Structures are given as structure tokens and as C-alpha cells.
């Protein structure tokens, strides 16, 4: 896919999103309410309209082939970049997905092992050291010091004794 094609797709997608936002805004009054001023939907409605107009402007420039992006025939994402970026993004999404099941202390070591060992090609020694020490630091910093309880999923019971010690 060339940059020019990507520009078109992005403008169409964002234009569709603006229309959805405009439609969604009309759930509230978008006109003037007597003695109350503008209705709650007016502000997002007109701003979404500006979004839509901007997208139309981008499309207009696309059809006239104006500007460096609209005329670019370069690849939008190079194949080997796409590999790396996809690997990282998928790893992120899977990690966040795992938060709710095996908890943050199950997901983070897996993420670290994947990133350090398979993307970074670091030694197993470094990988395991970081995969264990970083979650431990996070536990003490966030849960003990800041008192922010992070998601644990099914590992929750394992932490009950720890809570008893620290709280």
C-alpha cells in the first residue's frame, strides 16, 4: 500500500467516524434550549462537523494531488518494518488481554521474555533477571508505596498473604 492510498483510507475512516460522532451527539439537544443556553449536544455536534469538513478538505487535496503525502508513491509501511511493528503491537495487545486472566504478574514476565529474548536476542540470563526483577519492583512501587492495586485475574488468591504482610 502506498502512502497515497493510506492517506485516502485514513481520511475516509476518520470522515466516517466524524459522521458517527455527529449522529451520536444528536442524542442530546443540539439546538438552543430556552433559559438554559445551548443544549448538551451542540458542542460535540459542531466540532464533529469541523472534523468532517477537515476530512473532506484532506480528500479534496487528495483528488487534486496536492502536498507531499497525497502525491507520495512510497510504501506506507516497509515489509520488514511491518514485521517488527506488528510483533510489538500484537505482543502489547496480547499482554493487555492477559491482564484480566493471568494478571499483571503473569503477563508482564511473558511480555518481557518475548521482547528481550525473541525480539532483542538477549541472553537468557539477562532475560530472566529482568523478567523477574521488574515485576517485583512494580509490585513494591505501585501496590505497596502508591497503594494502586493492579489487576491479578486468577492469581489473586496468591497475593492474599502478601497483602496481609504489607497492609
Amino acid at each position, binding site marked *: 500500500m502506498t502512502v497515497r492510498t493510506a492517506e485516502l483510507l485514513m481520511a475516509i475512516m476518520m470522515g466516517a467516524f466524524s459522521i458517527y460522532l455527529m449522529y451520536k*451527539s444528536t442524542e442530546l439537544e443540539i439546538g438552543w434550549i430556552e433559559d438554559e443556553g445551548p443544549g448538551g449536544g451542540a458542542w460535540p455536534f459542531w466540532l464533529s462537523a469541523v472534523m468532517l469538513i477537515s476530512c473532506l478538505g484532506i480528500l479534496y487535496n487528495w483528488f487534486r494531488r496536492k502536498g507531499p503525502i497525497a502525491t507520495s508513491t512510497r510504501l506506507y*509501511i516497509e515489509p520488514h518494518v511491518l514485521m517488527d511493528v506488528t510483533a510489538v503491537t500484537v505482543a502489547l495487545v496480547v499482554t493487555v488481554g492477559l491482564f484480566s486472566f493471568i494478571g499483571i504478574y503473569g503477563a508482564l514476565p511473558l511480555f518481557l521474555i518475548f521482547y528481550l529474548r525473541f525480539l532483542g536476542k538477549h541472553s537468557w540470563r539477562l532475560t530472566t533477571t529482568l523478567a523477574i526483577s521488574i515485576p517485583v519492583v512494580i509490585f513494591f512501587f505501585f501496590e505497596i508505596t502508591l497503594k494502586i492495586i493492579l489487576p491479578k485475574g486468577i492469581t489473586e488468591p496468591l497475593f492474599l498473604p502478601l497483602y496481609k504482610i504489607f497492609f
Partner: protein
Amino acid sequence: MLEILGLLGNGFLVVFEPQNMMLIIAGCALGLFIGAMPGLGSVNGVAILLPLTFLVPPTGAIIFLAAIYYGAMYGGAISSIMLGIPGASTAVATTFDGRPLAKQGLADKALTAAAVASFVGGTISVVLFTFFAPPLAHVALVFGAPEEFALMMLAFATFVGLGSDDLFKTLFSISIGLVLSAVGFDIISGEPRLVLWDITGFLHGVNFLILAIGVYGIGEMIWTVEEHSLGGGKSMLSDANVTVKRTLSNLRELASKWKSIVMGSFLGYFVGILPAAGATPGSLMAYGIAKQISSEPEKFGKGAVEGVCAPEAANNAASTGSMLPMLTLGIPGSPTTAILLGGMVIWGLEPGPRLFIDHSDFVWGLIASLYAANIFAVLINVAFIPVFIKILKTPFTILAPIIFILCLIGGYAPTQSMHDVWLMVVFGIVAYLMRKLDYPLAPAVLAIVLGPLAEPALRQSLIISDGSFAIFFNRTYAGPISVVAILLLFLPLFKKIYDKFRKRQVV
């Protein structure tokens, strides 16, 4: 005058509390580190680390974040000089002459010049700040809803009029930020509003931090992954030969470059005040002017010390300058200050001129901390140059997962909802895809912070005027501000007409 000095004295008392002192030192060191890492700048550091500050009171929190902001301005120079890769966009101009100096084996000279110029730039701008801020806040005290709204429109109009990005993409970025800030509840009627796809998670709105960490944390990191993938992850690290004797002779040589340093400081400060401009254009402009006023302009680009001094003085001065409108008017002067402003709202402070009266400790503590941060940053910078160079050798594949994890937890911490973490990842990916198409993203972050303040200001104004927009034009302060905002908004159009007119004359 005396009153200001008295208040500043009180500020120093706040700064000298041991906890705050520690926060400044930690913030400077972290900021230097973040700034020195290619790809990460002050805005990324502040966005990713803001959730950590819930531990300390607001004054401590802002002091810590301001120190990071400051440290990052110093740190950016380190990788610009040693790697030839700007540590942050604000340090782009520093590579022009810093890199050639490093290649000639004079890296220590460039690093010293950057540190000293940053220090002078920081000091001059903080002094200017101290004496400019209170009068400006005083004037702003009479501002009502119409003035506030006009000011925010002015901030957005500068992006359109002075920004170098595509007009439609800038407009899009501003309005999507404002619309996202409207998600949740209608502030006046209390009805649920824009609950997208009826997902209940949107009922508590889109937190500005989620967008900020999405764009500046996740999006930025994916962007850096791409750059590493393209560049093969290889870069040449120069060696720096730092000895006391060499440093002294470097300092002596610097004394003769005072003109470019002072020029950069003043220029950076005033450019920094403008919302759309900030540190990056400020430092580029300073570089250009330094070249023009130099007695040896032909040396620029080949290793002129002034070419390092001027932009470095300017980017530090600009970071202070951008805090002026944030503190006095409640309008951020840069993406970083937009995030600081959002933080202030989370900490329960209402931004705007009343801060100077209601939270004098907070304001003056922050101002005094800038003086202190400046001194610490230059000391840490000079003392630990060899350490920072070592850190630059840390492979990206070790730092990247750690930063990703900080982002994920930072997105979860403020609201403790998985919905927000998912939203942040989506923002990150979309931000990366949009950035590849040259969509400017800073306006969106500014907009999501200002949105919750702009909407009530607009609605109140319209209620006062019974629906007439004339209220933004017929008041003493709101009038001129609105007129300037509209002129800026149409500036790109004027430029186009002017260009066409000139072309016709040439033909």
C-alpha cells in the same frame, strides 16, 4: 517588586523542604536520562511519569515534573552531540554543529557549551518569568468566561496560523481532541453524552492522560521501533575526553560567545510563550540568527560553538516561557505544559490567574524550583557526562519493553479500569498510523486538556449574551483577543492569496 521578591523567598522555603529537594534532584536526573534517549523528550517523560506523582502533594508533584521538563532540555543535547541523533525534537538544531564537533574529537567542548548555554538560557528566562508572571496574572484576574474562551481559541488559532502542518490535518487534530473531551457526561444537564458504541467504559469520559500516554508513550515507542527497524539499530557513538583542564579552557572560550547565548535565551523565552511554537522552532530560529550575527558564519555546520550555544540556550528558555501562559492564564504554551495543566486539574487545582492568589505556595514553589532545577541540572549534567554516555549504549530492545510496561501501568493507575488501558493502546496505534501521514498530534493533546475548560466557558458566555456571539467581540479584553485569533485562523488563506498575487505580478 519587593512583594515579588518576598513571594519568591517563600517559594524557596517550599523548595528547601527535604522532600521537594529530593524530588528536584530525582526529576533532573530522570529528565536528563529521558532527554538523552533518542526519541524520548520532555513530553514523553512527563506523560509517562505523571501517574507516579499521585503519591506526593500537588506542589511536590509539579516540582518533580517541572524538573523532568527541565532536565530533558539539557539531556536532549547529549545524544544530539554523541550520536548525531536528536535526543528530542527540541535538540534538532544542536546536531547541526554539535555532531561535527564530536567528530573532530571535541565532544567535551560541545557538551560543556550545551550545558553552560542551557544554564544561562534557563536562568535568564526564569528571571523574566518571575517578573512577567505576576502582572500578567493580575490583568487576567478580571477575565470572565468570554475572555477565557477567546484565549483558548487564540491558542488553537496559533496552531492553524503559525504551525507548519497541513491546515486540514491541524483542524482535524484540534477538533477530535475537543470532541473526545466531551465524552462522558454533559457537564450542565448531567445527561450521559457520546457513550461511543454504548460501551459503558466511556461513561467516565476519556481521560486526557490516556490520550497523552497513548500518543507520546505507546505511539512514540512504536514509531521508534520503526526507526530502529529502518536504520538497522546501528549508530556511531563518539567518545568524549573530559578532563578538568580541558573543561576550564572550554569555559574560557565560551565566555567570548556570550552574545549568541543571550540572544538565544531571550528569543527562546518569547517564542516559548506562543502555544504553537515552543522549544523546537525557538531553537531553530536561534540557530539561524546566531549564524547571521556571527563573525564567522562560514564555520556553521562544520563545528561552530555558537551553533551549539544558541539553540541550547533557546530550548531551555522556551520551556520556561511555555509555563508562563499555563500558570497565569491556564493556557498551555507547549504539549508538555498541556500535560502539566491536565495534572493540575487531577490534583484538584483550578488553572488560571486565581492560582496566584488561592495557591500562592504552589505557584511560587514551582517558580523557585525552576531556579533550583536549573542549578542541579547543570551540575548533574557536567558531573555525570561519562555515565550518560554509558546509558546511551543500553540497547533499545532493553529500554523499549520497560517503557511499554510503564505506559500500560500508567494508563491503568489513574482510573484503575481495563477499559482505559485498551483505549490507550488503540490511541497509540492510531497515533502511529496518523503520524506516518503527517497528522500533527500535539493539538489533539492540547485540545483534550482544554476541552473541559473551553466548553463551560463558551456555554456560560452564550447564556450571558442570550445566544449572541457578539459577546466575544464587544468586551475590552475578549474583543482584541478574538480578533487576533480570527486573523491567525485565516493567516494561511492570506498567505495563499498573497502568493498568487505575487506570482501574477512576476508573470
